[in-house]
């Protein structure tokens, strides 16, 4: 474990990245914001989430190449690495603007859970389902809610841009599954359903109040009264339903673990 830190080296590498991140400087950084511990923690965690997502799309790009996926899909996955790196910087700057990042212990050697499937196509599908069809698909509605309750022009603008990118990142998953549909048998689909379920269930510890006061939502944070129902709705609508439409069923127990009621309830 190590403290999460970021550096930029500049020079030709900074100039190469500059067009992709120039919009960050246009955000209303001069807005007066109250120092907020909750928001500092959330935006520090956001910076790391984006960093881990960059690693995930780097893995996906390699896996798509190994699976012989369409080259424009591969290029998009590689390009998403840049998106996530820019988001990482953005989140770090928002954390700084709110008073500074908190100490976050991370393990950079374990950023992306490796696929268990040996078959290159199924291995790619595992990565894509976990990252795009679950992670990015959940992110969009949660961040939209965070934006609506942000109460800050800076946070609003920051989240708006992230959401626009994450929508494309989620779409990559559905396009990949549709392309691979003819080569995914029932066993593969059942495996992918379990993969999605595990990724969803991993959020269960975040849900509920856990004996703590339910903080209000603002500055990009969501209190439990807003977060928990939004997460359950997102898991059902943005993940389970579109996966089911492709023959991939998320186990009901995994959905129940995050508050999704059983069908017909």
């Amino acid at each position, binding site marked *: 474990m190590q403290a999460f830190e970021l550096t930029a080296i500049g*020079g030709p590498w900074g100039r190469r990245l500059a067009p992709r991140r120039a919009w960050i400087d246009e955000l209303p950084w001069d807005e007066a914001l109250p120092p907020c511990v909750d928001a500092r923690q959330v935006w520090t*965690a956001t910076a790391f989430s984006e960093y881990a997502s960059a690693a995930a799309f780097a893995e996906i790009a390699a896996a798509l190449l190994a699976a012989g996926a369409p080259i424009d899909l591969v290029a998009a996955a590689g390009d998403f690495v840049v998106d996530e790196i820019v988001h990482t910087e953005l989140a770090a700057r928002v954390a700084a603007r709110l008073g500074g990042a908190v100490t976050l212990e*991370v393990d950079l050697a374990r950023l992306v859970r490796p696929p268990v499937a040996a078959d290159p196509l199924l291995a790619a599908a595992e990565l894509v389902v976990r990252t795009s069809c679950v992670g990015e698909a959940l992110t969009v509605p949660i961040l939209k809610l965070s934006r609506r309750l942000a109460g800050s022009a800076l946070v609003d603008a920051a989240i708006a841009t992230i959401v626009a990118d994450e929508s494309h990142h989620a779409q990559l998953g559905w396009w990949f599954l549709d392309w691979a549909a003819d080569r995914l048998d029932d066993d593969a689909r059942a495996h992918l359903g379990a993969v999605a379920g595990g990724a969803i269930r991993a959020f269960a510890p975040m849900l509920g109040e856990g004996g703590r006061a339910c903080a209000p939502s603002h*500055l990009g944070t969501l209190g439990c009264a807003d977060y928990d129902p939004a997460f359950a709705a997102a898991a059902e609508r943005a993940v389970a339903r579109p996966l089911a439409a492709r023959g991939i069923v998320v186990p009901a127990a995994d959905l129940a673990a995050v508050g999704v009621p059983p069908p017909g309830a």
Partner: protein
Amino acid sequence: MPHQRKILTVVLLSAGCGASSSRTPAPAPAVTRVPVLDVAAAPQPAAAEPVSAITLVSTPSPASAPATPPAIRPDDEQTEALLRLRSELYRASAQDLAAHHAKFRALCDEHGYPVVGNVASKSMRHDVTGYCADVRTQLVLRTPSDA
């Protein structure tokens, strides 16, 4: 020597959250700002600098000092360890605190890999009062057989 710029800076802060609406200017806090990322300035050759810095930002300014001695010592008279503990209490769950975790950790799955996506936006503040209340509750709920 390559030029490195700090992007993520770790800061200890004792202040709580301000008003949820921040479109109106808030009083400027007595903070020591750390330049986190100077993107406008052209990179100049420089020695590599530490990538992380810890700065105490809640030190009250002399102008704002009360006439009577404060009941609680200001942060600049507290030990760094105490300030860090107070910051961690805001975030940590009772289970984490009971396990004496010293730092915040990214939310991970059962195998230690980060949860996917960017949905860790839930606010889970835990203040000292709440933590102590939890501890008292746990003590009350313990039965003799647990001891």
